[in-house]
């Protein structure tokens, strides 16, 4: 056999310093094979992750958040395939690599936290085993050393009684603790980029906040690039630096989080923001129900012509039904895929 360290772990990581571009996804498109032909689940998504920053990927269920992340990780199901685009990790296009070499980047350079930790962790192995199996299998760390690392990792994610709990199984943990284990296992090889796919949706609200804070702390401390996937803009405010809003498989708005909250440059973002409960304006929660974005997102393969949001948009004009708006810069550091983004922003300023 070829020495493990040489082939499986790509060259030693460069130091991470704030602002380094770690991961750049460009024009990504993913298709699913189905009975009635190929169906686009992601269609021209671009985003960029920098060291020390958190990017939130936001959008309704089914807009392609998970599928695009799985594509980056090379974990798409056999029925899906990347049809276009690149995902460059420090300049190397992961999507152009052989599956084996792509796999080698997983865990060390780009790691992923999954939503449902109970299903995502293996029920028949101890938590300690799962925390360090990559370490042991890829770097030949001894059993003893691995155990020490496992305890360290559990400490890092603030699981009480770490030394004792490493020998327990996932089903013996509560939901919140299990999600912490999931996070710890993704951190085992100190990845540059962590993609967290709805890491807190399965948890109740207080636990949700704790886990998010933990993620944010670890991200800041390690100068990691974090991609936080969520369908809840409310979650984003305290944690993210930048936000990319997705609709029907593509990005429709990108902005620093403050700017986005202050003045959305896309009607879809505006509708999403309206559905977020706000402590300062009780008026919007009047009637006891939050407004949701009216209508439903299109099923992949049935995306409307022109602007894909037009059937649900309260600003839609004739132009929107025929001409697809490109994702263009509308202000420094901001872009929007709406024909009337300038008006929207201007209106907010006026």
């Amino acid at each position, binding site marked *: 056999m070829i020495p493990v360290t040489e082939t499986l772990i790509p060259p030693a990581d460069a130091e991470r310093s704030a602002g380094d571009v770690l991961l750049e996804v460009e024009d990504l498109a993913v298709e699913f094979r189905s009975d009635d032909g190929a169906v686009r689940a992601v269609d021209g998504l671009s985003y960029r992750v920098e060291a020390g920053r958190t990017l939130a990927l936001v959008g309704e269920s089914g807009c392609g958040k998970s599928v695009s992340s799985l594509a980056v990780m090379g*974990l798409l199901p056999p029925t899906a395939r990347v049809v276009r685009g690149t995902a460059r990790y420090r300049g190397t296009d992961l999507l152009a690599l052989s599956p*084996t070499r792509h796999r080698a980047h997983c*865990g060390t350079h780009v790691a992923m936290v999954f939503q449902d930790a109970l*299903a*995502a962790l293996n*029920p028949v192995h101890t938590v300690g085993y799962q925390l360090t*199996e990559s370490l042991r299998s890829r770097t030949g760390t001894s059993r003893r050393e691995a155990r020490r690392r496992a305890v360290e990792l559990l400490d890092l994610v603030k699981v009480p009684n770490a030394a004792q709990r490493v020998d327990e199984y996932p*089903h013996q943990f509560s939901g919140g603790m299990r999600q912490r284990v999931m996070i710890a296992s993704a951190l085992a090889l100190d990845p540059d980029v962590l993609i967290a796919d709805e890491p807190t949706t399965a948890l109740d609200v207080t636990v949700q906040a704790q886990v998010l804070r933990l993620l944010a702390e670890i991200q800041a401390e390690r100068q990691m690039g974090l991609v936080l996937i969520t369908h809840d803009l409310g979650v984003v405010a305290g944690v993210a630096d930048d936000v990319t809003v997705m609709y029907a498989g593509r990005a429709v708005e990108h902005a620093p989080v403050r700017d986005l909250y202050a003045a959305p440059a896309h009607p879809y973002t505006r509708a999403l923001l309206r559905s977020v409960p706000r402590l300062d304006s009780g008026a919007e929660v009047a009637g006891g129900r939050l407004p949701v974005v009216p209508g439903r997102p299109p099923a992949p393969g049935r995306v409307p012509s022109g602007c894909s949001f037009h059937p649900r948009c309260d600003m839609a004009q004739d132009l929107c039904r025929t001409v697809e708006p490109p994702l263009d810069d509308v202000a420094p550091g901001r872009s929007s895929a709406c024909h009337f983004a300038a008006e929207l922003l201007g209106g907010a300023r006026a």
Partner: protein
Amino acid sequence: MGRYILRRSLLGVATLLLVMFVLHLLTTFAIQLNGNPALAFFGDKVPTESQLAAVETRFGLDDPCYDQTGNPCLGPFVERLGQYAQGDFGTNLRGREVTDIVATAAPNTLKLFLVVTIVWFVLGMGLGTAAARRRDRSADHGIRLTSVLIDAFPIFVLLLVYRYVFAVPLNGWAEDTFGAGSLPALWFRPSFDDDHPWATLLVPGILLGLAGSAAFIRLVRASQLESYAGDHVRTARSRGLNERHVVTHHVIRNSAVPVVTAVGLTFTEALAGAVVTEGMMNIYGMGGVLWEAVRAADVALILGIVTILAAVTVVVMLVVDIAYAALDPRIRYA
């Protein structure tokens, strides 16, 4: 874990008692309906009253309940349980201890079983794993088709065809090529030879293993496919582990629970197959002895052997249950 094993053991003992009782009822009713099996002792001769009575006493058939159709004969059952508990399984019609017969027959059956188990386990794990890994590709289709084909030939058909079509020419060819007493010649002997148990057991064992492997291949494939679809496999891959590690530690390991369960079921199937195989290939083993005992209406021998086989099955099931708990922590800590 301790309580789990205790619970399972008690369940096993209860199962064994139930099996013995059902067996007792069946033989009792058979005696009541078909007449006195003690007559079998005399073959074609017609015994006198006193001779018959003596034989009935010796085999415990003198209880009047055997003349009353529908009577469950609980008395003799309890009596027999007491004898079994002291290791006394009675004698066959010729007066030989049942335990003695078992002691000479069991080793051959064990040898047959070893061959069978190795064959079906290797085929099942090997082909099942290969099929799951190449799902919906030609290797997978080929393996599934093979397993269905094997199922189309029950063990006795396989044995019949082998014994009457292939064994003689193969044996002749091997004797011509390698010499009369050579190993290949023994392999293809159409019947068992006590002096060369391993060599003459090999082919029947392989055939029986082949017959048992078909369902096992499909089960291994199905349970591994289920594992492959599990989220935990995706997580393992996201850790950058190589595919071989993922397959052994997250696919095969996780499918071990249903597979071990199937081992228990396949074992009982192989037990039934062994009875047929030993009978057809004249192998002197538990199945062969049972086969003869049934033909000779030797009640004590039938009861003794079936009880021992049932006990072995119960023990295997218990081992399976314990393995099951050892493999799945969710059961262990329940």
